[in-house]
Each structure stands twice: as C-alpha cells, then as structure tokens.
C-alpha cells in the first residue's frame, strides 16, 4: 500500500490523550500496560501525551458522570483537527456496571460517551485487554489517515 508523506506521518506518529471519565480505573491500568515493556506502543511511534493540544487520538474510559460530561466535550474540542476518538471499555460504550437496567437509568450517568462526543472506534471489554486496545488504536489510525 503506497501512502503520501502526509498520510504516512499521520499514521506513524499518533499521540494519545487519555481522558478518564469516572469508572473503576481498571481500563486505565490496562492502558498503562500498553505503554509498559510487554506491549510497548512506542515501537510504533505512539506516545501518551497528557495535553489535549498535542494529541491526535482522544481515548475515553469510564461512564462519563453528569459532572464530567460538559468538561469531556470541552477537552475534546481542545484537540486540533484532524482527530479521532476511541471509547475504551464497557462503561464508555453503554454505561457498563453503572447502568445495569435501561428501564431505570442511573441518575448520575451523563453518558454513554457516544452521546457526548463523536466516537470513531469502540473497544469493548471490562476491562479490555491491552491487545484489544492496541487493535482499537490501529483501527482508529485507519480513520485518522483519511481525515
């Protein structure tokens, strides 16, 4: 597959901003494992940046409680275009254990995250294993390349 220099650079050096929106912290631990020796994502030039203005990929974990929901949107807007967003874990996708009954929704949950920001890739699992997070990032890169 031949790529132009722009698409190549975009696919080769994505920087991730990790937004923790509530939740039990387990997805965050699995994400940290992606950057630890075993799954080292820096092999592919992927870096974890704790600054939304530097990042290309917006990775959300957690069910986004009502208090965090507007802030999540604001932080998403701080990423310069082109950008993609990943919802990582069951909580971010559906509300997970925090929203067990759809007929009686949890009063504190402002999510799922898809309602708040445009999400491109969903990574299911409670928590998702590092392998599936890496696959999610690779799928996100496919989208980022054509933005």
């Amino acid at each position, binding site marked *: *597959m031949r790529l132009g*220099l*722009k698409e*190549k*650079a*975009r*696919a*080769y*050096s994505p920087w991730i901003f990790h937004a923790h929106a509530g939740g039990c912290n387990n997805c965050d631990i699995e994400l940290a494992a992606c950057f*630890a*020796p075993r799954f*080292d994502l*820096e*092999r*592919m*030039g992927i870096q974890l940046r*704790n*600054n939304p*203005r*530097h990042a*290309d990929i917006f990775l959300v974990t957690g069910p986004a409680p009502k208090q965090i929901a507007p802030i999540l949107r604001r932080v998403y807007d*701080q990423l*310069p*275009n*082109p950008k993609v967003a990943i919802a990582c874990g069951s909580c971010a996708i559906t509300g997970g254990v925090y929203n067990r009954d759809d007929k009686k929704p949890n009063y504190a949950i402002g999510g799922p995250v898809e309602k708040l920001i445009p999400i491109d890739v969903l990574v299911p699992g409670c928590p998702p294993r590092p392998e599936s997070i890496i696959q999610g990032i*690779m799928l996100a890169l496919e989208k980022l390349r054509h933005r």
Partner: protein
Amino acid sequence: MELPSTISIASSLFLPIVSFFLGIIYGYEIRKVSARLQSRRGPWLLVPKSLRGTLGVTRLFQPLYDIIKLLCKESLLPSTSTKGLFRSSPYIALICVIVAAAFTPVATYSHLASFELSLVVILYLLLGVPFAFILGGAASASPWGVIGSQREAELMLAYETPLVIAAFSIATMADSLSVQKIIDVQATRLPFLLLNPLAAVAFLVAIIGKLHLKPFDVPEAEVEIVAGPVTEYGGRLLAIIEIVKTFLIAICVGLFIALFLAGGLVPGYDKLFSIPTFLLEGLLIVLVMTMIHTLNPRFRIDQALIWYVRVPTILAISGLVWAYAFRHFFPAFI
C-alpha cells in the same frame, strides 16, 4: 575577513539542513536508548517483516514523522492569549537556531565558524531560544505556560553561567574566540577534553539543562505542569517548536565536539576522516546524556538552581583558573 564567496554562502545554507537531520538521528537515539534502559523496545529500527505493509520499514526518522504530522495539523489559538507574541515567538526561536546552525561546524566544515567571534555569536543565538520560549509561554495566558516560563527563566540563569564560563575557559586556552581556530589548535595537539576536563564536565551538564533532559526538565515537567511554556501550543506552532528542539540538540552536541574533541579531527589523519569520528562522538555524547536522562528523577526548581551553582559553576570556574594556570606554566604549548 575576506568577502563571502559563493561556496561559503552555499555551505552556510546547507549546514542547517545537515544539522537538522543530525538532530533527528540524535532525537531517535534519545528515545530508543531510554526505552532500552527501561526494558522497552522503543521505536523500531527495523519493523518486523509481517507488519511492514502498514507500519513502514524503519522508524529511524520517527522525530521527523512527528514534525511532519504536526505541520499538517491545524493550530488553535487560545482566546485569552496575546496573539501576535504567541504566534511569532516559535519563529523567533527558529530563526535564532537556524543562524546558530550555520555557525556551528559539522565535522570541522563551516565557513562562518572561521569568523573571529563565532563562539560569542553562537552562545548569544542559543540564548535566543529560551527567551522565545519564555515569551511564548507568558503570552499563552495559561497558568501552566506562565509557571513554565518562570521556571525556564530561573533555570536559564542557572545553566547559562557554567555554559559561558566553560566555553570561555576553552577560548582562553586556545587564545581565540573563533570556533574554527579552537578546532585547529586542538588538531595539532591534544583535544581540550584531556587538557581541561573540568570545563568539559561543566559544559556537558549545562547542555543537559539547555536541552531540558531529565534531572533539569523542570520547565517542561510533564505530569506536573502539563508541558510548561508549550502547553497551549498545538499543530503547526508546536511543529516549529519541535524543529527548534531538534536543531538545539545538534547544535549543542556539535559545539561540544568542536570545543572539546577537535571537531572529530584525529591528528595524523585526513580532514575527510573527521566525518565518521564526528558522528561517532556525537552518538556517544547523546548516549551519555540519555543515560543521565533515564536514570535520574526530576529536580525541584530550587534544588536545580542550587545544584547548578554548587557543582557545574564551581567546576567551570576552576576550569577557567586551570586554563590561566596552564597558559602561565606552559606558554609554549598554546
């Protein structure tokens, strides 16, 4: 000084490009070596064959990919910032650094380095970079940017003293302020690394502060103050800042090699032979700096200031005293 010829103009335009690519290789080395020391892999030098379709063949130019990616992004301006200053300060730093790169000899090749005061010019131009960062951080109107600028200013006061004193003790020993002349003096005799190791150590430590590597990355302390002066920068303006940092690595390492290792010249060998030795010495110096970067935690700003006054400044001053003593006792040597 004779009038500049076409060759000298061409070489001074060509040198910044060479030092940019050197900086990219040094930047890759910093990332790779620090990853290896943390028992990670780091950016692949050779991507495994099964992944080459999607991930490319090599990641040797990883910092270059980062820069190109950032150049293709939009840059957001914070609504509260002083827009003109915020937008122009990365370009000020870029101009300073490109001109400094034209003055810094790469493996003894530089026409501008033979100018009588080239060492002073390089040191002043390098001072322009932290100034531009301070301006940009303060203009961004973000608390992180302002705290970063303040720390940058304090750290600059701390590392600039040993850097200048160490550079001038070498100038004293060589009896010249021209970088080319300093290289020529070493080429016939011993390199200044052996004749004045005190100044060499002080200079290396000052460079580590200048490049914001680990014990002294106080201004850009990630996790602590987000990214310091560069917090609000994104997209194209951040790309300019990354380019400036790439240049800065190459210039600082090149200046160290020129001042202390004879610009890669080995006595008794041809001038052309200095190119591989220059590369080797550059990679070695970056290796040492990366080891310090990986194995150390971060200083607090007050600790960094006090440490800089206590150790490298004292070393640099004793290097200067040593240089005068050397000139007094071995006048035939110079």
